[in-house]
């Protein structure tokens, strides 16, 4: 078990040693990754594997041990995130070809902490890995770009805030239950809530806040767009597809079981208060993320908000507290990982070739980058939750769960968000790849092979998971069964809903779709042949655009794409001033840190020292 963590750690060190030789480092990187994937595959089903390092100390009356264990749900998260991370990192080779810094060391560190988080046996290990990931992210985001510093600082302050809360929560939990181990402490927390409700709920909410910060749930939905705006595209691919799920994992293993079995006042006979808290957080995130995504002009920000919305779906699935909803949420975790990775890879490819991420300055790239276009197309079809690609199954299960529990508000929010998703997804497709190709991009080429192959793999995975959801659902149900949930092992293509007669065979959906396309394709070939004309030859009410000084750029509707719709929401969005609140808090924070920075005269180290000081103060205060 421990070798899963040792190998990446050792590889990190050796890569750091060979950092000058890119080929060597990447070879090492791939070899080590291959091993990890193999190892992960081989420990599937061996749920008793664990490793523990006994320190012998006791803090707050609880044993202070460091350890990893093969938690089934953790394995599920770890395997798929490792797979996606590997694909992204391969893409990163091509992406960073011309950059001076060697990113493989960061990638290795990321994979290390990734595994650490998902296999952590106790909260202390979890916290260490959690923090390591936070810091690695900080360096990865700022990598070589001064502009990215703002977003990175914002992210760092937010995650430090989260970490402080986590630390308090862990300390409280340890003090009251006497253990730091994750799974036993869940039962401990349950008992606390049932005996002294207020304290228990405070602890639970502390945990919840930490996790929703990491997963960018409302009201902490701002960091992704700030970070993504200037961060390196390969790394934000990882952030948006994998890292944003770090908050979901502890929710799945810790919060959901507690909330689901806790005895609290019930609302509408469908669930308890906390369920509704989670549900409303999810619903607001889903709706707000969708609306904000619709109004963005920067494609990375757009998909940042799309991630917020998708995290909202996952919380909605949790809030139903039914097994179908739970499965659906966890299925959606992986689906979202896959499709977001695919989408962000294409965005990275676009930025790589054009250096532009404002959508209205792009356009018509389908003429130059057809493979990227196809990946993006499949990505958005998946993200929109349209069969036969992945993304449909999980959304369907979540809606089924919500409907079966009669959670009508959440169900409507879900439909609103996923229909609104068509709007922003299509907008990105139309603005980036369709429309008129501006003259300055006439020479753009398709991405090189190292970047094309990962994109192609993503396409295959999306289609595979979409038609044969069993490749994800089987391990998922197996893991859930191993944890003790009462589930049937899923079949390869059939998904089970919770309502009467609600099974859906995605294979048949796929066949039907193919049949439909074949019939319409026959119609198409039956028709007379067509002639391809250049993009300039367009309906212009009979005018000659060139005589009016109208070129491709000036004949492209993509800025302010949903203006009438936006104007409906302008008053509403202005009244939600959470952005402003955060901005002012952020400004004060920055002001404070720069003041202290002035004292130390030592660059970014001051922020670190200051933050650690704050943490120590909080901790000290707690212990006293």
């Amino acid at each position, binding site marked *: 078990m421990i070798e899963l963590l040792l190998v990446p750690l050792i590889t990190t060190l050796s890569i750091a040693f060979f950092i000058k030789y890119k080929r060597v480092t990447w070879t090492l990187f791939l070899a080590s990754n291959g091993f990890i994937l193999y190892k992960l595959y081989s420990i599937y089903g061996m749920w008793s594997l664990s490793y523990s390092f006994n320190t012998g100390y006791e803090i707050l009356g609880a044993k202070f041990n460091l350890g990893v264990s093969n938690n089934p749900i953790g394995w599920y998260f770890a395997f798929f995130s490792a797979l996606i991370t590997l694909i992204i990192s391969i893409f990163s080779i091509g992406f960073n070809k011309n950059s001076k810094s060697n990113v493989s060391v960061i990638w290795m560190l990321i994979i290390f902490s990734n595994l650490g988080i998902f296999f952590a046996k106790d909260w202390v290990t979890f916290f260490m890995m959690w923090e390591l990931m936070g810091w690695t992210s900080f360096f990865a985001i700022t990598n070589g770009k001064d502009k990215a510093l703002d977003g990175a600082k914002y992210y760092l302050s937010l995650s430090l805030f989260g970490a402080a809360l986590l630390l308090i929560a862990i300390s409280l939990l340890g003090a009251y239950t006497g253990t730091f181990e994750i799974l036993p402490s869940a039962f401990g927390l349950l008992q606390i809530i049932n005996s002294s409700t207020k304290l228990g709920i405070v602890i639970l909410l502390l945990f919840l806040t930490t996790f929703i910060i990491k997963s960018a749930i409302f009201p902490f939905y701002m960091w992704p767009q700030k970070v993504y705006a200037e961060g390196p595209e390969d790394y934000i691919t990882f952030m948006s597809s994998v890292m944003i799920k770090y908050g979901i994992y502890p929710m799945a293993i810790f919060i959901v079981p507690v909330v689901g079995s806790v005895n609290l006042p019930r609302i509408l006979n469908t669930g308890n208060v906390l369920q509704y808290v989670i549900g409303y957080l999810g619903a607001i995130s889903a709706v707000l993320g969708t609306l904000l995504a619709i109004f963005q002009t920067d494609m990375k920000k757009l998909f940042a908000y799309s991630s917020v919305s998708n995290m909202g779906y996952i919380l909605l699935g949790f809030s139903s507290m039914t097994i179908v909803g739970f499965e659906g949420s966890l299925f959606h975790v992986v689906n979202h990982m896959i499709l977001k990775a695919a989408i962000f890879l294409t965005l990275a490819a676009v930025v790589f070739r054009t250096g532009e991420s404002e959508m*209205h*300055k792009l356009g018509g790239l389908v003429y130059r980058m057809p493979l990227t276009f196809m990946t993006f197309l499949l990505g958005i079809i998946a993200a929109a939750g349209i069969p036969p690609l992945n993304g449909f199954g999980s959304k369907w299960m979540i809606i089924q769960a919500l409907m079966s529990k009669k959670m009508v508000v959440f169900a409507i929010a879900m439909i609103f968000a996923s229909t609104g998703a068509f709007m922003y997804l299509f907008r990105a497709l139309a603005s980036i790849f369709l429309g008129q190709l501006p003259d300055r991009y006439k020479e753009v080429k398709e991405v090189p092979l190292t970047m094309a192959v990962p994109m192609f793999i993503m396409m295959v995975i999306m289609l595979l998971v979409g038609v044969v959801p069993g490749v994800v659902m089987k391990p998922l149900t197996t893991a859930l069964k191993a944890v003790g949930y009462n589930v049937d092992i899923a079949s390869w293509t059939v998904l089970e809903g919770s309502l009467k007669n609600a099974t859906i065979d995605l294979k048949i959906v796929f066949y039907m779709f193919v049949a439909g396309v074949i019939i319409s394709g026959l119609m198409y070939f039956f028709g007379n042949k067509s002639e391809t004309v250049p993009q300039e030859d367009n309906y*212009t*009410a*009979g*005018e000659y*655009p060139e005589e*009016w000084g*109208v070129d491709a*750029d*000036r*004949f*492209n*509707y993509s*800025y*302010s*794409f949903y*203006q*009438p719709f936006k*104007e409906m929401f302008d008053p509403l969005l202005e009244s939600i001033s959470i952005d402003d609140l955060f901005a002012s808090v952020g400004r004060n924070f920055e002001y404070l840190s720069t003041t202290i920075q002035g004292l130390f005269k030592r660059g970014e180290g001051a922020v670190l020292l200051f933050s650690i000081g704050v943490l120590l103060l909080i901790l000290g205060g707690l212990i006293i």
Partner: protein
Amino acid sequence: MDAPSYTLSKIAEKDNLAVYDLFFGPNHPGMHGNFGYVLEMIGTEIVKVRPNAGHLHRGFEKLMEQKLWVQNIALVPRICVVDPDPNEVAYCTAIEKIMGVEIPDRAKFIRTITLEMSRLTSFLMGMGALGAALGLYTPMYIMMADRDLVLDLFEWLTGARIYHIFNIPGGVRNDLPDGWVERLNEVLDHLERRLIEYDKLVFENPIIHKRLKGLGYISKDEAIKTGITGPNLRASGAAYDVRVDDPYAAYPYLDVKVITQEGGDALTRAVQVRLEFEETIKLIRQALKQMPEGDVRLNLGNLSMLKVPKGEAYAKVESSKGEFGYYVVSDGGLKPYRVGVRGPSLPAGLLYAQKHLPKMKIDDVAAWMASLAICPPDIDK
């Protein structure tokens, strides 16, 4: 409405790529006639407009200098297809003014009746076009069918459906045929009955109210200053009507009710047309009742050898779109020396396009044009 466009123009200054151009016409389903606006847009909002006129320019003013006085009567109605008679009357009135002749009373009344009938057809088309601009085709078709009834009467009277060439210097070509007046009365009854349906379909339609309310507001002072005339002016509150203020034909004998409304937006203009439509029917009835017997034309000799004495005159006529004016200069010869034409649509079609269209959505352009009854041929001439 002002705030977003302010930010939009800021955006346009900062980010040139946010702006795109849309060609609204000449070949556009929302455009009546060959006319064009090149719209610079951000999102669906217009930030700047470049009018593109001249597709219908035929050089009327030049052509008229080449033709005999009476030949030109065949030419003038073609300046505005939907409302041709005011052109004939204005041109003939100008000639009569220079010659200093007074036409027989019966001719005046017949002229008035044809003018008002022409106004009916034009209003029917205008109201239909307004509906069509908003996607409501049913009243348009019904109105076109009703318009055909009036055109039939024209055909009976003049031999032509659209370009009647009926008014000539010195009067009108012929007297009313037998039975024509009865038929006209029937048609007017029919139109009055139909008004209820139009009201239900168009003027009381809540969606139309929603779409037109506040669109393209013109204040009274502004309208007077910029030369807006006709129903558009009266919808802004100014009680100006050429028929009353500078009467011609038989209008001095008739009691013309000038309808004014406060409001000045597209909805008021639409309702204005509807109210004036009703008034026009009443006016035709009134004219029929008061019409005297007698000659219908002066004997001016051989009209093709007509010589108009040296002089100049400006004659104006209230058409369905506003003041149609002919400025005729004669050097005493067989042909006009110079004819200047004032079409009513120019201020609305060119000036107000630049005033109103920025800040407006692409959705409203066609409806705005229809509400101002912009007739491109009389801009282009």
